[in-house]
């Protein structure tokens, strides 16, 4: 059994591995498919429904086609896919209409909707400040990172992404992965004076012992040391200071042997270590 199968996308033939998801195939071949909830670091989810495509299987009658989310539909032999058919565009317009009603203030949604010819929603606009589309990407990435600090809470119209009991999350690492992957950039966070605030919790950033620069939280460092068995020494200094140190070490190793030492190393002028 060959692992490569022949499929047709928009009347063009492709040879792809069996079981590969249609969205991945389209992205590899430069076929544009809009998506909001997809991220390579997590399994596909089919949350936003925006990547719907129309398809027909080999054994089906020629007039019988169906819609499915490309991110979750695996390739099989003889599959025919249309990514921009009338049926697909109609479904996408309806989804965008609903998304626009949910978060009228989102620039990302407004832009994609305008590209599909939806300039205003035909539904009642939701009142609220956030632009969450409940795609669940933040919670999935948080699970993947290992923190599992956030999840969707409640059901139906009240459903929301929340921390346990709506309080500052005890398991959060403050890594801001959720905020980075959020398709509508709605997860608010601030960073000032070596403190980072996200999900209502304030984190202390680890300051470099050399220059005071900070990039990760103490919780992130503790998590990495605890679960990945890395030396805490690695996290004491920032990347620039570590780079200077390693340059000085290598210079010391190299030039001590050959010429008995060289000039100062690094912009700060700290000399090579003569050990």
């Amino acid at each position, binding site marked *: 059994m060959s692992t490569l199968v022949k499929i047709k996308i928009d009347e063009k033939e492709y040879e792809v591995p069996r079981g590969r998801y249609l969205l991945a195939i389209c992205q590899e071949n430069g076929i544009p498919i809009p998506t909001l909830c997809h991220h*390579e670091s997590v399994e596909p989810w089919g949350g936003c429904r925006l990547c719907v495509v129309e398809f027909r299987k080999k054994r089906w009658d020629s007039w019988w086609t169906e819609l499915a989310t490309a991110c979750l539909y695996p390739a099989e032999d003889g599959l025919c896919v249309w990514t921009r058919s009338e049926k697909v565009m109609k479904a996408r317009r309806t989804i965008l209409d609903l998304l626009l009603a949910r978060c009228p203030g989102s620039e990302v949604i407004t832009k994609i909707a305008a590209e599909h010819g939806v300039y205003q929603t035909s539904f009642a606009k939701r009142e609220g400040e956030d632009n969450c589309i409940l795609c669940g990407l933040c919670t999935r990435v948080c699970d993947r*990172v290992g923190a599992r600090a956030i999840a969707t809470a409640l059901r139906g119209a009240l459903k929301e992404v929340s921390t346990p009991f709506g309080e500052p999350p005890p398991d959060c690492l403050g890594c801001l992965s959720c905020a980075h992957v959020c398709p509508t950039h709605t997860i608010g966070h601030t960073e000032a004076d070596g403190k980072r605030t996200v999900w209502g919790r304030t984190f202390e950033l680890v300051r470099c012992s050399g220059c005071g620069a900070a*990039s990760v939280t103490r919780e992130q460092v503790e998590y*990495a040391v605890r679960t990945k068995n*890395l030396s805490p020494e*690695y996290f004491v200094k920032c*990347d620039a200071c570590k780079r*200077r140190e390693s340059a000085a070490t290598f210079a010391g190793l*190299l030039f001590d042997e050959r010429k008995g030492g060289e000039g100062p190393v690094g912009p700060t002028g700290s000399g090579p270590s003569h050990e």
Partner: protein
Amino acid sequence: MSNVLIVAPDRCIDCKKCELACSLHHAGSLDPDRGRIKVLNRGVEKGMPVVCLHCDEAACLIVCPVGAISRCDETDAVVLDETRCVRCKACLAACPFGNITEDRVDGRVLKCDLCEGAPMCAVFCPSGALVTRSGPRPLRSAP
């Protein structure tokens, strides 16, 4: 067998062409800050190129929570898959040599990937401080 990037700091003349070549190749702009290789000054016209060592037990690879950093089978390089990266900056903090940096312009994580086996820095190095040589990766199974 794969290409090996060899760094010879005694030949480095601190011209920083490698930084420019790297940023042009990866970011599309001539901005040394966006390069994945850095040259530190160690005297007049003497530089010390600092670039990812592609460690056998790479701390960045171990610490990445989403598996975005992996070892490339073909080039033996430790590479970052930017589509998987969630920008938690754990690798940046974990690298013991400080060879992973952050792009000030768009916040991406910058990590040397040996340009899929043909490092641009070596192509543009005028003094022979950075050269590529084909052969097995040295120190691969050293204790």
